[in-house]
Each structure stands twice: as structure tokens, then as C-alpha cells.
């Protein structure tokens, strides 16, 4: 009897935690998203579905921009992370953990602080641009802050480890004999990578893309600190609705819309590229 209950007892603390701090607020927010009213006179539950349609109408471009930025930053992360993960997994030898630690080191500093220090580095007359302008390499009017590039760069930097780690884990688990077998069977370095290493690391790539794309699309700090008025993402809108306008129903409706878009996206992505099919596609 005891042994049959044990697994449930082990799930209990975590389950209760999730129930109290995730499920309950989620339900409350669903409720909020259908209310009407304001912070002074109070909110009233009227099941106002227009909160959703109005949100989409008003901020549709911000949704699109968020997903676009997510795509750009995720792609940049993937291009930077794969070689780095492969190098650590195959070439770093006994120093693997040192390099992984170096990779995670920025995470010991607050997310906001890291982003703000980028602002300092990229400032119009800061250490990088100021110096280059002083040398005459860049024109006086050149700036990086307040551009899409700065936001994408910041997002890429801040979420890079989420891409590196799962890819590293997948590559690290790869049996080196399988790679040798490919070479033994007349595969060149490129063919070995394309036919064996890459397909076998795809589960890691899949996980990395999800783990990066979701938080990047929902981010508001990078757009706020590094971007300009043209870089407003949906995260910034929600933040403003909540904390500036105190329009809880609109903020909640926008949040759920974003969540639905991301969930649908992940579902389609998993269906299209899910493990088995990814491997099928990689075969020939």
C-alpha cells in the first residue's frame, strides 16, 4: 500500500506549489481577461470577449513583431550556439565544465543589469562607438541603440545559453564510435556531419529552439532598454497595460492571446518536425 502511494506523495509538494502559484493565478487571469471596469471603480465580470478581439486589432502589429523578433533571435542563437556546443562537446576534453561555466557566468548577474550594461557599451558615444567615431571609422551620426539590430543582438545574447545547453547535451551523448563508423564508411567530414551528427543532435536543436523562441517572443526588457519606439514588442504592451494603465482585463487578454499563439506554434512545430519525422527527413 505504502509503495503504491509513494509516487503520489513525491509529486504532492511540487503539485501543490504549481496549483497555488500557477494554476490558480492562471484561472484568475482568465477571469480577469473577460471583465470590464477600471482600477478606481473596480472590475466586474461580464464575459466581455471583445477584450480579445480589440486587443488583437489594436496590437496585431506588436504580436507579429514579437514573433518576427523571436524568429530572428532564435535563428541567430542557433547559428552561434551549434558550433559552440559542438566545440565544447567534442574538443574541450577535460575542460568541458569550465567552458560551460563560462557560458553560464553572465547568468550570475541580474538579467536587467546585463541588458543595461549593454546600453552602456553600445551608447552613441560609449566605449565602442565613441572610439570608432574618434578614429573616423564610423560617421558621427551612427548609432546602434534604438535600432532593431540592438534589440535582436540583446535578445540573442541574453538567451544564448538556452540554445547551447540542450544542443550540448545531445552532442555530448553522441557515441564517438558512431562518428568513427561514418568516417570508416567513406563519409567525408561534411557528410559525417550532415548524415550522422546533425540528425542525432536534432532533438537537442528542437528543445533549444522551443526554449529560446518562447521567452524571446515574450521578452520586454531588451526592447525597452535597447530598442526605440519602433521596437515595441507585445511584452512591452502588456507591461504598460498592467503597470501603467492598470487595465488588467486588456493585459490579461493580451497575455492569453500570446500564450495561445505560442502554444499553437509549438504544437505545429512539434507536429512538423517532431523527433521521428525529423530523423526521417534527415535520411536522404
Amino acid at each position, binding site marked *: 500500500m505504502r509503495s503504491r502511494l509513494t509516487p503520489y506523495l513525491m509529486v504532492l509538494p511540487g503539485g501543490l506549489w504549481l496549483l497555488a502559484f500557477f494554476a490558480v493565478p492562471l484561472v484568475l487571469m482568465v477571469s480577469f481577461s473577460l471583465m470590464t471596469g477600471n482600477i478606481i471603480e473596480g472590475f466586474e465580470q461580464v464575459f466581455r470577449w471583445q477584450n480579445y478581439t480589440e486587443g488583437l486589432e489594436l496590437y496585431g502589429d506588436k504580436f507579429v513583431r514579437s514573433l518576427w523578433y523571436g524568429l530572428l533571435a532564435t535563428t541567430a542563437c542557433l547559428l552561434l550556439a551549434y558550433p559552440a556546443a559542438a566545440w565544447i562537446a567534442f574538443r574541450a576534453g577535460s575542460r568541458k565544465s569550465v567552458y560551460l561555466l563560462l557560458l553560464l557566468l553572465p547568468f550570475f548577474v541580474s538579467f536587467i543589469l546585463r541588458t543595461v550594461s549593454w546600453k552602456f557599451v553600445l551608447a552613441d558615444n560609449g566605449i565602442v562607438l565613441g572610439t570608432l567615431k574618434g578614429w573616423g571609422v564610423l560617421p558621427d551620426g551612427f548609432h546602434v541603440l534604438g535600432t532593431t539590430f540592438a534589440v535582436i543582438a540583446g535578445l540573442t545574447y541574453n538567451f544564448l545559453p538556452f540554445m547551447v545547453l540542450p544542443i550540448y547535451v545531445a552532442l555530448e551523448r553522441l557515441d564517438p*564510435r558512431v562518428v568513427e563508423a561514418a568516417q570508416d564508411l567513406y563519409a567525408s567530414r561534411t*557528410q559525417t556531419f550532415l548524415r550522422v551528427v546533425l540528425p542525432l543532435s536534432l532533438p537537442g536543436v528542437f528543445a533549444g529552439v522551443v526554449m529560446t523562441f518562447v521567452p524571446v517572443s515574450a521578452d520586454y526588457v531588451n526592447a525597452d532598454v535597447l530598442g526605440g519606439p519602433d521596437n515595441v514588442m507585445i511584452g512591452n504592451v502588456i507591461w504598460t497595460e498592467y503597470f501603467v494603465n492598470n487595465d488588467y482585463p486588456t493585459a490579461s487578454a493580451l497575455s492569453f492571446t500570446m500564450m495561445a499563439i505560442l502554444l499553437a506554434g509549438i504544437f505545429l512545430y512539434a507536429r512538423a518536425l517532431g523527433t521521428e519525422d525529423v530523423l526521417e527527413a534527415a535520411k536522404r
Partner: protein
Amino acid sequence: MTDTPAIELAGVVKEFTSHGETVQAVKGVDLSIGEGEFFSLLGPSGCGKTTTMRMVAGFDEPTSGRILLHGQDVVGVPPNRRDVNMVFQSYALFPHLSVAENVAFGLRRRKKADKREITRRVGEMLEVVGLTGRERRRPSELSGGQQQRVALARALVNDPRALLLDEPLAALDLKLRQSMQVELKRIQREVGITFVFVTHDQGEALTLSDRIAVMNDGRVEQLGTPREVYERPGTRFVAGFIGTSNLLSGAVTERSGEHAVIALGPEERIVVPAGAAAGRELEVTVRPEKIDLGVERPPGPGSVLRGTVTEVIYLGTATNYNVRTSTGADVVVFVQNANNANDIAVRGDSVWLSWEPRHSYAIGA
């Protein structure tokens, strides 16, 4: 066999450096492996046999020395350009590919055959290894023995100049291992390709090989046919490593025709077919199955020793007797249970051991 050996190693040395320390894994190996030969590298773990094979495959490069495949020096040539294929100990099958795709991998990379030709050859090879009908399975859906066959087919389908097998049967259980040994021998005969077989299992090497190189501590201790290395071990190490071997020693006391005699008392002696002069110390081996065990002193010109039975081990087809001789040596005697309804002797019995002069073999003499 053609004149050019399939594989030739000349003065091959391999050093590894780890933590600033240089270790010689292979300390100067010379080998010449003939076309179509079933050749085994036999030795304990760490003797350099796997490193030697990996250098032939191209995964490791020798620190010095030459490796020739069909007379061509291949040092510096990457594995994918060497016309040898390897069967890995863990099989190293591609987990994301089906059985047929695993087998077709090498043919597809070389682009020497069109699609139809590849399909045909893969089918043929799967038939040779008895896996027809399993083409679409994933390696993870196969048993260990079947995975082994896929690994074999994947290498053989390329028709390599030589097939390198790194302890290919080590992961299989005894029954399967034995049937795979027979299978390997059959396949080798069928395809006629040179097999280089790395193993630490002396029984496997004796069963399968045309010739065996016994390796120890980075060197080849002895090179010869299974019968040679078993019956006439060249060194103490070989005598001890291959089969059970009884090691006796003593100084030659007299010569009797072609034989050297080590007299160990009025009634006990070891007779060795060796040209050693009187006074010389000899180390003599005699295999357990060559010794006769009896309760009375046998007549005849051969070796005779007296001893006490310390252990009797019944093995079904045979019985092992452990005997402590009067000189203090421990000797194992292997008696077939063909006619003996009962044990010849029991623990504590005084017995006589005897064997013909030709079964004594003086190491290094």
C-alpha cells in the same frame, strides 16, 4: 594468396600523451597479414591490440613506423579514404537509420553504384548474414546478435580489402558467441576477405584464426598458427595466457639422445625434446590434457612426477585434477570422462603424473 600482403606494419610505434606524460601503447610492431587470411591480434586489455587496429583503420596515426595496405603506405590517409572497414565492439550502428540504410551507408557515400545496384547488394548482404525481412527495422529493435550481423553486413557490403573486427563478440552471451564464431568463419570463407580480429579471448582466437599474433605490453610476443602458439608457446607470457599451462622448471642433469633430462629424484624426471646442455636451467610447459594420471608409477621413457591431489573438479565431459608435485609445483591435469565411471583419485590421494617426451616444451630453447 598473392605476393603483396594485404596489410603490412613495419616498426609501428604509438605514443599517447596525457597530463604531460608520454605512454607508449605500441612499442614497435612488425606484422605481415596475407590476402584472405583470418588473422587475430590476441592479448589482455591494454596490450596495444586495439590501438594497432585503430592505426590500420586510420583513427589513430602511428608516432613512427609504416602501415601498408596492399603495398601502399597509408599513414596520413584519413579513414574515409582507406579501403578497410571496421566492425566496432559496441557495433556503433546508426540509431536513426534502418537496417537497410545502415548497410547502404558506405555504398551511398562512395557513389560507385546506382540506386538499384545498392538495393540489390544490400539485399544480398543481408541474406548472407541472415537478416532478410528485417530491412526496415531500427537497430534498437534488434537483439544483440542481430545488431552484430548488421554491423558485419554494413562493413562487408563495401567489399573492403580487409575487415577489421574489434572484439565483435564480446557483448554477446556464451551460446550466441559460439554460434557467431561459426557464422563468422563461414562468412569469411564465403566472401574471401582478409579478416583482422582483435580479441582477448584465447579460445575465440584459437577457434577462428589462420594465424595469431599474441600481444603483450605493446609488443608481439609470438606470431604463429593456433597450433603453434598453443603447443609451442614462445614465451612464459604466451604459455600462461593461452589455455591452461603447467609451468615446471629445473636444471638439465643429463642428455639422453635427442632429449634433455631433468632428474628430480630417483624416480622422478622431466624429459624435454631440447638441445640444452647439462646444467642449464629450463622452463618447461606441458598442457593439462597431455598428462596421464595414475595411482601406480607408469613405465616408459617419458616424464614422471609424483604428487598429491589437492582438488578434483568435475566438469561433465572431463574432470580437472589439481596436483601438488613433490617438488612443490602446482599442476593441472585434464582427464576426459570417456571411460571413467568414477574418479581416478580423490582429494589427498598420492598419484603419479606422466607424459610423453614430445609433450614437454622448453620455453625459449
